[in-house]
Structures are given as C-alpha cells and as structure tokens.
C-alpha cells in the first residue's frame, strides 16, 4: 500500500515537472516572430508519415538508419508497456495486461526482441561516438563537452532502462517458476537467462522490485531530461516535420514590409496596411532569436546534432568556418539564455565560449554566437536542408541573419557592395554597360538545314 502511494507521488511529480518544463519551452518558441504556416493538410500529413514516422530521410545512410529504426520502434512499442506499469504501480496489481492472454504474449515477446535490439543499437552508437569517432558526430567547434556528454547520457540511459526491464523479467519468471505458477506473457530473450540470478527468493524479489522501479523511475527521470537534451527531438520532430516548408527549396521568403515600402514609393496612392497591433516596428532580417520565426526556433529544438548537414556543407568541407549544425545549436543556446533555461541544462554552465564570442560586446545571436564570417561562407546550396532527417531549414536562418547585416548594418563584404552597386546602376551584377547587353546577338550565324 505504501509503495503504491510512493509510486503515485513519484509518477505525479515526474509528469508535473515535465509539463512545467514543456511550458517553458513553449514560451521560448513563442519569443519568435509570428508566421502563419497552414493549408495543404494532406501534403503535410503525407510528409509527416514519410519523413517523421517513416524516417525516409534517415535511409540516405543505411547503417545508422537501421540502428536508429530499432531504437525508434523500440521506444514506441515498449512504451505500450508503460500503461501496464502505471496501472500495476498505482493499484498494486501484477502484470495486469496479462488478462489479454495471447495478445499479451505477443506484445511481451516483441518487447523483448526490440529491447535486445535497442541495447545492440545503443552499444554500436556508443562505439561510433567514442571508439571509431565518426567525424560528423565528434568534430566541429559546436561539439563541445555538453553535446558529447548529452549523447552518451542518452545512450547509456537507454541501455540501463532496457537492462532493468530484462532484470525484472528474469527475476519475475524465476519467482513464478519457484512458486509453481505460470507467468503471463512470452519471454524469448530473458527466458534464456532465467537462472541468471540464482534461486534465492528474497534476492529475486529485491531484483524484480529494483528492476521494475529503476525502469519506471528511469523513464520519468529521462522524460525530465529531454527538455535539456537533443533527445527532445522524439517529441518535436513530429510538429517540426508537419510544419515543413513545402515550397521549392530555392524559394526564399518574401519580406512583406519591404514590398509595402517599395509599392508606396512607386505609387504614392498605395496604402500600406497597418502593422499588427502591439508589433514592434519590425527590423529587417534577424539579429537575435526573437527576430526569427517560431518555426525557426522549433527547428532548433528539433535538432539531434547528428551533423548530417555540416558533413555535406560545401563550405565546411573546404575548411570554412560555417557549420549549419552550429547555427541551429547556437539558436537554441541563445534562446535558452535569453528566454527560459530548462531544468538541467543551463547554457551558461555548459557553453564554453570561444574567444571570438567572448570578444563580442553584443550578446545577441548575431555576433554573440554566429559570426559574419560563418554567414558569408554559405553558398545557399541547400545541401544542409536536403540532408536533415527532421526537415530543419538551416538556410532560412542564415539568410535572415544576412539580411540584418546588409539591410540594418550595411555590413556586407565590400565586394558584395560593389555587386549591389552594379545591379543598381547597370542592371547587372558586373560592371558592364547596359548598352552592351545585346551585343551577343551581333554576327550570329547558324547552319540552316533545309
């Protein structure tokens, strides 16, 4: 009875803390500019099913895709068992879903196989990060101590959760065997190790109880770790993919305030629609996180720091400072510095500021985190956008930061200012005379075949 009450309190505190943290994150995302993303529901659902549920883009790299699939399916299916754990925990029942008979057996059997696959996948993932040092997972200035530790914490926690579940199943089976009754369910993995913990009843009871508690308390603790971690993608991937950009990747956003300004300039009778009430006089482009849209901020909460974007970035591949992943990670760090920090992660504690950033007087996303040199290295080739398994749009943030540099600070590189001047004066990005524009057609011959 006491244990039931303790369980109830632990579960309620765990869930309550999680809700409290989610509200902080929602407030952070709402710091961003409003942007209506709606319509095309069927295309959005289709994208959601393919990219988020179906993990379509993961399969560009088959090995991590298959391993990740194990963990992903394991996460979804094994959590069905959470329902049972919650009921058992609150009401003191034992394997309540056992009443489902064969269905329960199938469920348990699948869980055990998936649990084993999760452990195997996580061990390989740990090896890739810590032994073989896959470059995209370990290299780059943004892969500081915290992101590296975060990845290991996630993998080790998942292994521990699965081991606890197996320990519970093993001890529970042995206890049933000793007591001479049949345990509901089927256990293709732990069934092979029934004698692992010996046959001392009190020891087995301690192991079964501990396994059960470690598993459930571990899940509650892990849930409260998510908002501090890249692992939060297990929640944000779904809305982020649903609200993906559906337009062609080459289409950059239109700055409407500029459109109104130009139209008013060209036509004095043009009436500029009033800005939405309470809106700041909008600056052009983005200097800090509140100048980005909520979707760009959601992007940063969805990033798993997998580094696919950076590994295909032509600028990064040729030694430039730009790393698309860094820009997304910087956005999240800055958002949590400026807005609300999550429970465990305090950016001030975990961000080792580079000299470059420390030297900056401006604590804004632009310059305080992302330098102009990074931004000017981008070729807008969309390789990062194409590579992202959760449809983050790194490029849109880069362009908004560039817009601020150019439109608000006139801080474009000199050669680009020359290009702007050429367009303004000659109608071409090069210094050619507009009167020579049609010279290519002079003395143009062909071979006529009639």
């Amino acid at each position: 009875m006491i244990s039931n009450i303790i369980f109830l309190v632990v579960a309620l505190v765990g869930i309550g803390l999680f809700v409290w943290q989610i509200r902080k994150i929602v407030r952070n995302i709402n710091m961003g500019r409003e942007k209506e993303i709606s319509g095309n529901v069927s295309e959005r659902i289709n994208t959601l099913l393919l990219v988020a549920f179906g993990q379509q883009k993961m399969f560009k790299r088959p090995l991590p895709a298959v391993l990740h699939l194990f963990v992903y399916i394991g996460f979804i299916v094994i959590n069905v068992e959470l329902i049972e754990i919650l009921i058992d925990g609150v009401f003191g029942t034992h394997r309540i879903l056992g009443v489902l008979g064969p269905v329960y057996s199938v469920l348990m059997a699948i869980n055990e196989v998936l649990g084993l696959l999760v452990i195997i996948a996580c061990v390989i993932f740990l090896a890739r990060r810590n032994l073989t040092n896959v470059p995209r997972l370990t290299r780059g200035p943004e892969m500081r101590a915290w992101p590296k530790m975060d990845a290991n914490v996630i993998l080790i926690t998942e292994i521990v959760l699965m081991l606890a579940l197996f320990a519970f199943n093993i001890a529970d089976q042995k206890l049933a065997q000793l007591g001479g009754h049949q345990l509901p369910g089927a256990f293709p993995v732990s069934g092979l190790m029934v004698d692992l913990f010996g046959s001392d009843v009190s020891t087995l009871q301690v192991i079964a109880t501990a396994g059960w508690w470690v598993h459930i308390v571990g899940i509650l603790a892990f849930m409260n770790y998510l908002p501090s971690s890249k692992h939060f993608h297990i929640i944000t991937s779904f809305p982020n993919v649903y609200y993906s950009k559906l337009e062609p990747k080459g289409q950059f956003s239109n700055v409407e305030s500029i459109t109104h300004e130009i139209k008013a300039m060209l036509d004095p009778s043009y009436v500029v629609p009033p800005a939405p009430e309470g809106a700041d006089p909008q600056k052009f482009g983005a200097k800090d996180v509140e100048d980005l849209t909520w979707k760009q901020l959601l992007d940063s909460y969805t990033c798993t720091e997998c580094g696919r974007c950076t590994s295909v970035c032509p600028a990064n591949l040729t030694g430039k400072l730009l790393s698309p992943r860094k820009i997304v990670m910087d956005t999240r760090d800055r958002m949590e510095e400026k807005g609300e920090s999550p429970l465990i992660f305090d950016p001030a504690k975990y961000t080792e500021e580079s000299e470059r950033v420390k030297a900056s007087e401006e604590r804004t996303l632009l310059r305080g985190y992302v330098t102009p040199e990074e931004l000017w290295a981008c070729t807008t080739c969309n390789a990062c956008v194409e590579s992202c398994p959760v449809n983050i749009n790194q490029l849109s943030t880069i362009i908004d930061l560039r817009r601020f540099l150019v439109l608000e600070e006139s801080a474009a590189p000199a050669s680009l200012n020359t290009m702007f001047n050429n367009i303004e004066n000659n109608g071409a990005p090069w210094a050619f005379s507009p009167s020579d524009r049609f010279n290519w057609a002079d003395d143009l011959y062909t071979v006529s075949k009639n």
Partner: protein
Amino acid sequence: MSEKKQIQVPVMADLAARGEVPEVLFWVGCAGAFDDRYKNVTRAFVRILEHVGTKYAVLGMEETCTGDPAKRAGNEFLFQMQAMTNIATFDGYGIKTIVTACPHCFNTIKNEYPALGGNYEVIHHSTFLQNLINEGKVKIAGGGEFKGKRITFHDSCYLGRANNIYEAPREVLAALDADLVEMKRSRANGLCCGAGGAQMWKEPEPGNKDINVERAEEAIGTGATIIASACPFCMTMMADGVKSQNKEDSVQVFDIAELIAQAEGINA
C-alpha cells in the same frame, strides 16, 4: 542541303510594335549577355530555337538583373526593386511563358516573383530541350560527334535541390548517345560548385580549399573528358577548377545546349 545563315534575334519591343506575341520569351540573363565564355551558350540556345522554329523573342536591352544575387546576399530591398521592374516589363508585353538557361534566373522568376505579383510559366532550358527531343524536333541522328564520349553532368543547386530538376538535363545528354558517368555526389547529393549565394561576386571566406577545386577533382576523377553543366556560374567555377588541376587540355566544360547544338550540326 545546309547553308550558313545569319540570325536576326527577334526583340520583344519589335514584336509588340507589330502586335505579335511570341510563344516564349527567352530570358538571356546577365551571364548570358556579358560573360564571354557563356555568351556561346546563349548563341547555341538561339540556334536551337531557330532550328526547331519556336516563335521566340528576347528583351534585348530591356533586360535587367532578376535580383537573385542581391536576394541571396540578403539585400531584399534591391531584389524587390529589380523584381518589380522586370514584372512591369513582362506584364507590359503580356508575357506568359519564359524560358531561360540560368537556374538562378529560373528559380527567382518562377518561385519568388509570384509573391510580388509576377506569375508566369517559367521553363529551364534543360526541360525545354528535353521536350524538343521527346517531340522529335531535335533528332541528333546517330548521336552526333559526342557518341561514346565520356561525359559527366554536374548538378546545379538551383536546378536540382532547389527545384527538383535532376532528370531533364540527363535525358538531354542521353540523346547524345554518350557514355554518361555520374560523380559520387550527384542529384540530391550533388556538391555545389561554390558560386551560389552570391559567392560568385566575392572571394571565398578563409578555408583550406576552394569548393570548385574540390568539385572539379571529383568530376575529373570520373575519367570524363567533358563536364556538362546547365548553369552559367557552375560553368565558370568548373572551368576554373579544371584549370587549377592543369587539365584544361583534356577536360572541357560545356553547357547542355552547346552540346546539343554541336551534335545537331547547327553551329556556324
């Protein structure tokens, strides 16, 4: 019977004066008009238009930058000024369909002009050429002079990833009956030439290699003697990259329109 014939390129203002409307407006673009090497591509495409009898026109001196480099560099104001100027020109002539060889102009007019009130059917020359081949208007009997030659196609970011056009240029090349080889990074995984995002007009940021050199090495590594491109900036970058490897004598860079015009025997 074949004879050398001069082409008088039809200008939109003249057609309008005669009350004529072309089937398509050929948007030449700044590189097409001013870049000495790339002007050959413009001429080759015009020869093809003449050869198949498409009723076309160009804007001539009335063309001005689409604003693409300004927009990629963050100068939204300059971009919109250019866009509105061009939209006024298009609409003044009642233009409905535009064909262009430049993926940057193509992307900008097709995707970014609508938000400013400019709605046109915009076709990239790779798709246009593909249609001509499919319709049998361009035949290239026996594959022409590129038959069996090893050719690799370099995807332009603004054609490929930006607009999902991967197959059209490849199908055009297939008409040459050449030995088409793919680079390891191709189609959606293609590596940028390094010129996009207004990089064409600036020195690269500090790094350990130029992007076009990285890409040219990959292209040369396929053993191809011809690198085919479908973008003026890719052409410049790839040609410079090949030169940096001292391979300009054995590896040449051509636009797909040049290859088609050459194979069809209409160059003069």
